[in-house]
């Protein structure tokens, strides 16, 4: 087909006028996307573990980093786990202060843990001390990365 004389068949639409104030036109809170590691999650446990802290750590092993296909504990992002009265408290860091996957990670942790009947609520505490470096990747995580051809 000759391009001569061709005109795009489009309709010109005016841009929406957005009121210049906060949250105009959108819900107050917009939840972000979810990462792709969810298909690796196992079904919720039928019985609560005796050791809830260790049980929580085990669940976190199923939550993968959205960019690097190893778990958050293997990547060294989980600095601590506590459990009391149905509340799982997770001390969490990120690889960078402006990690673009922060929301993915927070949502994935919360969704995986709260799928368990014995976890009523997840409390995420963002920590930056000590600063994360690749030295925090566990030997298991390092081995997996090696198999994937990723140096760390």
């Amino acid at each position: 087909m000759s391009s001569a004389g061709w005109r795009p068949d489009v309709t010109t639409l005016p841009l929406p006028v957005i009121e210049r104030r906060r949250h105009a036109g959108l819900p107050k809170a917009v939840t972000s996307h979810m990462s792709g590691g969810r298909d690796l999650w196992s079904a919720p446990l039928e019985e609560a573990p005796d050791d809830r802290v260790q049980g929580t750590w085990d669940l976190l092993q199923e939550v993968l980093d959205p960019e690097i296909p190893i778990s958050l504990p293997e990547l060294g992002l989980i600095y601590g786990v506590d459990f009391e009265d149905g509340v799982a408290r997770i001390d969490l860091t990120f690889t960078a202060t402006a990690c673009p996957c922060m929301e993915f990670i927070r949502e994935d942790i919360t969704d995986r843990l709260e799928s368990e009947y014995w976890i009523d609520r997840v409390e995420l505490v963002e920590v930056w001390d000590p600063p994360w470096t690749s030295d925090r990747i566990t030997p298991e995580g390092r081995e997996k990365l090696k198999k994937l051809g990723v140096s760390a």
Partner: protein
Amino acid sequence: MSETLDTSTLEGANRDALVRLIISLADSKRLMGIRYSDWTLGAPSIETGVSTASMTQDEWGHARLLYAMLKQLGIDPSPVEHDRPGEEFASLSALDHERGDWVGTVALIALADEALSTMLRSFAEGSFEVARTRVPKMLAEEEFHASLGAAWYRRLAAAEGEAAGLLRSATEEMLPGLLAWAGANDAAARAMVDAGVIGPAEDRLSAFRDAVRDLVALVGMDINTVEPATDWDEVRGRASGRPDEEACERARGDRNRALLVE
């Protein structure tokens, strides 16, 4: 290391001084990110453009963590970030205007970012607990900025043509404001020193001079002979002036207000 500051008892001028320090650092980081972002598609090489994109991301991450420190003082950071007029911005004067050429941007990376790191090192070693725990990660990320800035500064200083002269001009223009800011010694700054939040002015000033001495010598300048600017604004803790309005609109996110998320 100083004893931990009890922010619950901090009031009056001391509290205002800490707020001023946090906002000046945070505003500077946000503006620095904007100035870097202008070069993500216009730097002299693709690799450098990618670096400026990465540094932009870092600076805005640092700004986010710094503004959030205001929560420790019972202040909601959101209006500070999104609803202030440009004349209240407390960012470094070196960031007030877009650098029209890459040479000026290199001076920003090598000198202005270093002034911020000088203050952050002092902040990280002080009595404000949140700074002790958050700032080391920022400083670790800043090491890459310093490497890139120094490499480009050396390259331009040794280049033939007008590059070295332009670099010297940018350096001469920028240094007095940076020295005044890094070595701030007005009543609010002294209050922070007395509270152990940051180190003494002479220590900060000499640390900054030491950090940039060898670089500026490459364009024929002796850092010891450069005097700090005297047009100081005690309310904001920076030299007089303000960032251009377009930068303030970008910093506040005026065009993205419909997309703001909590």
